[in-house]
């Protein structure tokens, strides 16, 4: 019988069982890395570094997981915080402009080879809409769960999802008609 996430978490808590934690990483690595790849606008190396940092942080703070939310939701929250901290740090140290994360590039300037590519269209959304669409529409979180992950009000999540989906639809339609 396959152990549940809660069983594995209990093993980590009681025995500090790193094999059990390894199984949790194996189960959730694809989703966490996928989310971070989209948040970093497909910078795979950076996304994987952030994913690794997220899992290490999850291990160190696993006692704060109370089982009130799904383990995956708790992980997404850590990953999103790691991403935000990194973006802030890069902005301070290297002078990367936050506009690069928040700005909405002009869909018409996109390489034609990338048009029709839904994931690329998604990467054109500003961060607050992209993260809401990623969590709710792609990863299947409820609006309430996404609000907890993003630490923003429920109404804001709903608005961001709605606006993000509308923009995605328009971008894809515009590419399709060209």
């Amino acid at each position, binding site marked *: 019988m396959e152990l549940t996430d809660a069983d594995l978490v209990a093993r980590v808590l009681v025995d500090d069982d790193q094999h059990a934690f390894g199984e949790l990483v194996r189960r959730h690595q694809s989703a966490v890395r*996928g989310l971070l790849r989209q948040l970093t606008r497909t910078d795979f190396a950076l996304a994987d570094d952030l994913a690794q940092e997220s899992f290490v942080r999850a291990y160190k703070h696993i006692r704060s997981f109370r*089982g009130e939310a799904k383990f995956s939701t708790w992980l997404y929250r850590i990953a999103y915080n790691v991403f935000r901290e990194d973006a802030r740090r890069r902005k301070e140290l290297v002078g990367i402009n936050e506009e690069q994360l928040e700005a909405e590039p002009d869909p018409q300037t996109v390489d034609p080879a990338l048009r029709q590519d839904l994931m690329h269209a998604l990467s054109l959304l500003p961060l607050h809409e992209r993260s809401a669409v990623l969590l709710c529409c792609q990863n299947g979180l409820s609006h309430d769960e996404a609000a907890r992950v993003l630490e923003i009000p429920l109404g804001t999540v709903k608005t961001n999802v709605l606006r993000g989906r509308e923009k995605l639809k328009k971008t894809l339609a515009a590419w399709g008609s060209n």
Partner: protein
Amino acid sequence: MNENDELDLLDRRLREAVPYIDDAGFTRRVLQALPAPRRRAVESFRAMILLSITVLGSLLAYFLSDGGRFISEGLVKLAYGAPIVMFLVAIASGLVITGLGMAAALWKNQEFGS
């Protein structure tokens, strides 16, 4: 196709567009980056300190209470008392121990989030 159908289709395409990312050594790298497991020796040392304090406290209480005479006196009184008193003491003790056990089980259950 109405607007809701279009948005549903978009959501479905979004979900289908996520490829499974092969582990390719990622889990191994994470495990290597984890801090060392908690040292059992430190926990054993803590347990030893707690046990020693308990033993010392008990010995101190024993000698200060003149060999624990009040306990034997209490037991004698109980033995000579009415059977109903002994029965009530037994019931109360059982209830207290059950209550403590249940509280501990609930607390552990919450801690492990299961």
